[in-house]
């Protein structure tokens, strides 16, 4: 394991930009000015959409919605590093990553509207897997997919997202071990947002998540998940490593869940507001915007244009969501079997009259 990505001493995550946006590491991550601006644009769009979704939920247009405010850099920085053919296996909180992958937000939000299950968009066309609720179960899917890609001789990489809480599940472990022993072209991307519903990560595990990798025989790295440049570079290195045939990397992106677990959750029951206020200081968007402005890569006009675009976009998505009709009743039966048994067809007739 000669090419273990660098990482800070002890628990210090790798960082390129300090919370105030001043560079503390090599900020040249190989992105063009356009691409750097695109990172900001995606983060702004994603945050605005996230807030719109919470509003939509409050207005009864969505069912329970899990916000991701605070995690924009982790999702956008990593998803932006992916190649066209790379494939994402998300949890239920990766809407920002989905947008970067080109998943249509209105289609995605059918899931939160309760009009379809976790795969309303086309996962194969978008190369973004179905929304996955049972914790950590997407990780074995990712391992299998990565194996399948390698068997086909592609050099596409598979990335699986998961939370800090997910690392306690057996499926995380089994998938990580398969990834290691089969040297799969795979990135295990953990968003450690400090919480799993009401459990702080300190009570989730006594270890550091990035350190788990060594036990599976591949490198791990802890990165500042609110530093979009650091996240992007770590992901890109992991992708390169995988493409070279050197196997998986575990990335632990240290971020923070600013909001409650979901719109159904009241975080004040279990955590201090002070902690949240403190976390706002490390806000990923502010940090990156400051740097872009300071370096001159973006100007105020660009920043404003982003905000405006985000506004329009959010309203468009809102309209689309509200217009999403209930699915036809037949769909409950249409997609269960590719080759439906005749008894199943009789039941369909009974149900649909």
């Amino acid at each position, binding site marked *: 394991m000669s090419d273990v990505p660098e990482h800070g001493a002890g628990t210090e995550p790798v960082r390129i930009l300090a919370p105030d946006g001043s560079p503390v590491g090599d900020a040249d991550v190989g992105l063009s000015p356009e691409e750097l601006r695109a990172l900001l644009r995606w983060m702004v769009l994603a945050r605005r959409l996230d807030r719109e979704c919470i509003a939509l939920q409050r207005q009864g247009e969505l069912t329970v919605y899990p916000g991701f405010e605070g995690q924009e850099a982790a999702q956008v920085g990593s998803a932006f590093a992916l190649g066209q053919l790379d494939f994402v296996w998300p949890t239920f909180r990766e809407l920002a990553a989905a947008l970067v992958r080109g998943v249509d937000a209105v289609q995605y939000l059918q899931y939160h509207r*309760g009009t379809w299950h976790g795969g309303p968009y086309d996962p194969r066309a978008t190369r973004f897997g179905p929304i996955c*609720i*049972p*914790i950590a179960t997407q990780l074995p899917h990712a391992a299998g997919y990565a194996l399948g890609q390698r068997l086909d001789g592609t050099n596409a990489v598979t990335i699986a997202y998961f939370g800090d809480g*997910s690392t306690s*599940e057996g499926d995380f472990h089994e998938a990580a071990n398969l990834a290691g022993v089969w040297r799969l072209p795979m990135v295990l991307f953990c968003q450690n947002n400090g919480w799993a*519903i009401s459990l702080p990560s300190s009570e989730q595990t006594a270890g550091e998540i990035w350190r788990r990798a060594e036990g599976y025989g591949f490198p791990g790295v802890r990165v500042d998940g609110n530093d979009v440049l650091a996240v992007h570079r770590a992901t890109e290195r992991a992708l390169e490593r995988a493409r070279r045939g050197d196997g998986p990397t575990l990335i632990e992106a240290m971020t923070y869940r600013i909001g409650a677990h979901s719109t159904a959750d009241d975080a004040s029951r279990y955590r201090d507001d002070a902690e949240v206020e403190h976390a706002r200081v490390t806000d990923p968007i502010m940090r990156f915007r400051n740097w872009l402005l300071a370096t001159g890569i973006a100007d105020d006009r660009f920043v404003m244009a982003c905000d405006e675009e985000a506004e329009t976009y959010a309203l468009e998505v809102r309209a689309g969501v509200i217009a999403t009709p209930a699915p036809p009743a037949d*769909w409950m039966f249409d997609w269960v079997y590719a080759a439906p048994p005749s008894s199943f067809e009789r039941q369909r007739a009974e149900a649909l009259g």
Partner: protein
Amino acid sequence: MSGALNRALYDALAEDPRVLVFGEDVGRSGGVFRVTDGLQAEYGEARVFDTPISEAGIAGAAVGLCFAGWRPVVEMQFDAFSYPAMEQVVDHVAKMRMRVRGRVDLSITLRIPAFGGIKGKEHHGESPETYYAHTAGLKVVAPSSALDAYRLLRQAIADPDPVIVLEPKARYWSKESGELANDGPGIGDARVLRDGETVTLVAYGAMVTRVLDAAAVLAEEAITARVVDLRSLSPLDDGVLERCARETGRVVVVHEAPRSVGLGAEVAARIMELAFDHLQAPVARVTGWDTPYPPASLEPLYLPSVERICDAARKVVAY
């Protein structure tokens, strides 16, 4: 019902110092359905505690705790999230007592918010009772009212055998009054909730309310429906099933789970065994379809409706 369950846990913790309550988010936050609200504050972190997201691990830990003489009451956060623990439940919780020839009681209570009807997301509306009721060595109950929730949970905790408590999510916020008490019908006992002579409607969990509604509709058509709340899914109450089948000669069984190899099949098969000569019509099953639980907007089409129940009852009566 959420309050009654909370009260049951509160009282069980007070009465027996060997009772422990644990699971995901049951401590500080008090549970996603508030069932464990305030318990940690009252009984401390040693007896009421949060666990990492490790369903198999915590079900397995419950087994070990029994060997050390504790009475674990474990919450699985939702129906579908009890499946990761299936190996522990089927291979150990259910079989351990036999394996060690009764030297250790597996006094585990596994609470699972179950069934649908809350327009939940995928994996939040499952009816897992078949998996558990088929597994020898377990007992399985499903209350339909606050009073029953209280006493079945108390009885489950006191029971020396492992009991799966399927709590109907759709009833958590029911407003019910009345004293909570620990006596009355036990695990294994069904209850007749409404008398009637023409047909027996059998249900459990959240479907009980729906069946009562159906009985009210049928009453207007001069069909007097007897309503049986199973309460206990394993063991089933053969006595009540036999008596009602014999007396009414017509039975409709209702559940949310898919029909095939659902609990309704067992009820139908038993009734045939116990009361064949008295049956005037085949036992009818009104159930969820043999499909995955659908998205929220199709839920009404999936769940047995008052109309579907009434139709089935009418057909059985007209048979």
